[in-house]
């Protein structure tokens, strides 16, 4: 057969003799630092570069980052909202920068309220988003991947949960549990959102597990969890992210809505939804001089939601290996042309988020 291998001359050199390829060991070792650098590059810098390269994602990420920073260090930097810290219903900038967004009916600085409400809102959003994501991904992948009875049972549960009219259920749960902890509130607000994700992920998993590389992994005897984690999850990541964003929006919309309805209890900690409630019941809609009281939280919520959507629209690229390859510093350049346009998957649900 040497004759043939000679003909099969596509291999330019056989530096390593046939048998050795199988036994080859390395002569050098990577330093810890190098390996660390690789990890950082792969998991942090590369996604960052990708996000940065899409305008929508860049703007979205910027907005989200702004809120995160606001939530993290804002409360430390900006004064606390206090009753009677200023005159009542001061218009924005009316007194210079003393009350940049004005004050409310109790003379509290509105910017201060917004800033100090951010951490708990972010916690709520993160809790809701994580809950939905974890539940949805777990149930969806387990159902889709294991099939059979497990699938039927999980699918039925999912379908049922999905059909519960979300808002009324949340209203009842909120009244039932009277959550004060933002994390608990976040969970309640997304109590049935995960089902939609689970259903979607299940069908994605079904189609992904038809890919032959999944079968190849099975043939290699890899364990099911590792197949799910390595072969299936990366494919549904864009979807997961989008759902995370939708869940986050659901949290924002529903919490504000319920605070507004007065169904959710609130405590001394300020909250955007409570601000809207107080502004509306305080008559901000009636008096032009108090309009800022309502507009400020409205704009805050809208901007965050807007940022989240923009970000999610940009992020399917983050998990797209084609784009990844181009932004990985450790790999050589790639000549793949960029596919244009936003993705279809990134569109948000209809109906204003709450259903």
């Amino acid at each position, binding site marked *: 057969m040497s004759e043939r291998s000679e003909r099969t001359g596509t291999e330019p050199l056989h530096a390593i003799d046939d048998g050795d390829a199988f036994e080859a060991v390395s002569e050098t070792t990577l330093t810890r630092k190098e390996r660390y650098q690789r990890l950082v590059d792969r998991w942090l810098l590369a996604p960052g570069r990708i996000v940065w390269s899409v305008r929508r994602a860049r703007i979205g990420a910027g907005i989200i980052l702004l809120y995160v920073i606001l939530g993290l260090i804002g409360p430390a930097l900006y004064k606390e909202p*206090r*009753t*009677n810290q200023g005159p*009542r*219903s001061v218009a924005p900038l009316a007194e210079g920068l003393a009350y940049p967004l004005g004050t409310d*009916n*109790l*003379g509290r600085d509105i910017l201060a309220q917004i800033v100090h409400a951010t951490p708990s809102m972010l916690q709520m959003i993160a809790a809701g988003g994580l809950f939905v994501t974890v539940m949805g991904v777990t149930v969806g992948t387990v159902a889709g991947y294991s099939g059979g009875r497990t699938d039927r049972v999980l699918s039925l549960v999912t379908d049922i949960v999905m059909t519960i009219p979300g808002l009324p259920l949340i209203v009842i749960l909120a*009244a039932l549990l*009277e959550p*004060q902890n933002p994390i608990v509130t976040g969970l309640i607000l997304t109590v049935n959102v995960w089902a939609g994700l689970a259903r979607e992920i299940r069908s994605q998993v079904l189609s992904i597990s038809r890919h032959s590389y999944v079968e190849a992994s099975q043939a290699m005897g890899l364990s099911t969890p590792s197949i799910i984690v390595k072969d299936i999850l990366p494919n549904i990541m864009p979807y997961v992210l989008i759902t995370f964003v939708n869940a986050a929006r659901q949290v924002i919309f529903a919490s504000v809505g319920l605070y507004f309805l*007065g*169904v959710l*209890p*609130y*405590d*001394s900690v300020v909250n955007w939804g409570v601000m809207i409630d*107080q502004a*509306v*019941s*305080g*008559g901000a*809609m*009636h*008096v032009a*001089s*108090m309009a800022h009281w309502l507009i400020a939280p409205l704009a805050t919520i809208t901007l965050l939601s807007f940022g989240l959507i923009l970000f999610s629209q940009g992020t399917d690229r983050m998990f797209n290996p084609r784009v990844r390859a181009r932004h990985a510093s450790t790999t050589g350049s790639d000549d793949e042309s960029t596919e244009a346009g936003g993705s279809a998957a990134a569109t948000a649900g209809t109906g204003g988020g709450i259903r």
Partner: protein
Amino acid sequence: AGGSDDEADDTGGEITGDEPMTERTFTAPTSVLPDDMQWNAANDSNYPDRPGFVVFDQLVYFRATTGEFAEGALADWEVGDDAATLTLQDDLTWHNGEDATAEDLVRKLHISLYDNHPIGNFTSVENVEAVDDTTVEVGLEADVSEPVFLNSIQNMELDTPAEQYQDILEELENDPESTALADFAPEEPIGTGPFQYDSSGEQELVTTKFEDSHWADDVNFAEYRFRFIDGNEQAWQALRGGSVDALHNIFTSPDIMASFPDHVVEIQQPANWGLSIAFDHDHKHFGQREVRKAIAHVVDREVVAENSAGGGDAKAPVGTPTGIVGNFDDSAAEWLDDPDAFEDYAGNNTERATELLESAGFSREDGTWVDADGETLTFEFKVPAAWNEWVDAAITINQHLQDFGVQTNLVTRDDGVYFGQDLYGDTGFDIAGFWWSDGWTYPYHTLNWNLNSADAKNVYNYSESIELPPIGDPDGETETLEFAPEFEELVGMDQDAEETRQKINELAWAFNYDLPQLPIQEKVDQCFVATENFSVVDDSDPDASVKYPTTYLPRIGKLVAKEE
């Protein structure tokens, strides 16, 4: 702006008393869907109480500013030691055309007694009987002073014509446990009031002037309508847009009032009740007088009241906590012989508060108060979520307390849960928003409410007696004061007698010294009338303090239609 500062023009011109009859319609809001209304006040569902005020006549009306009673369905009354004689107006006619007689009043009183009306405290069915066509005599089983008795029948309306209620009364006589009364749901009311039911639709209830009513001469407009309006914002908008001519009673901040058309006037009436902080007297900390007092010193009631009123004057801060209403116009002090002897807990006196807490064994650690056992002085401050003014007040109170190092947390609660469970149920509270009077000016009521009522015992677990030093001398020798006998005595005492005044002073001192509750503010009801088509008297007229000006003033010609 609808300020009452401009005079004549604002109120839409002088009311001479002989305005000509017009075809005008006066429109006011109602929060019950007209289609759903039923007219039995004893039935719990969808009873339209505002419309009820024009269709039915109250037995007597109460002028809150002067504390006097004015005639309603009753033309005259007399409260003696063992009997009260009630005399009906002699021209009173039911909307179905029948004369309203003493029999009708007897029926009303009997039904009320079967329905557990508070006059049952003084009398029973057997003692109520008609003497002649217009007079009813009510035998009293104990001494009752006149204001106390009248207060108890004041909100009673003559609304039980034989046509609708005779059968029900008979059933109650046969079976006092019968639910016939509560189940009765007449779709059309029959009353004796100045307006009678005409029709109701999706959005509106129409009542038309009842020419045979006792008040007919003073009413110069043809219709009184009620428009379904839900929520304050909608109400303000309706008034602003002219779809209603009045709002009965809605708290409205100065900012919002500023958005009303110029022809809208505000009529303020003392509500004689307002927010207080109720302490759980069984609580380890709040059972301590020093802690309560410290809190009283820390909370700056003026700021709270102002915040709660949105910067306006609709909430009057309580001057000196004595358990007597009248902070609105300082009439509270008139009951006191020596107002200065009372502690006023004014301002934000943290020094005094610190002293008090330290004397009770507390110390301040890292800005937080900790008792001798190392427990933090902390509590959840519960308020009903939908009561916005209370929430605003509570936020402010909370702020004051936190600034002083008391670890408080505001908790808004669903109204039902708040009243049903936190106050009157099992969940309880540490400190909660409550009220410190129940709408009456006579000090007996308020003091009784705070020191001796079932609520005092059940809601905030107040004790039946206290150790009380002499008035004005908190450190003096104490004596035990049992509340129940004191009030039993006071109930029957003539309100003008000197000893009555003495007793009131003593009880007010008990209140001031021991602070069963901390009164924060006193509410002023705000009523709005658009004077484009109607004229109304200024709110300095005592009659304007009868509840509600929109329904009472037309009866006496003090809210009249302008000439068309």
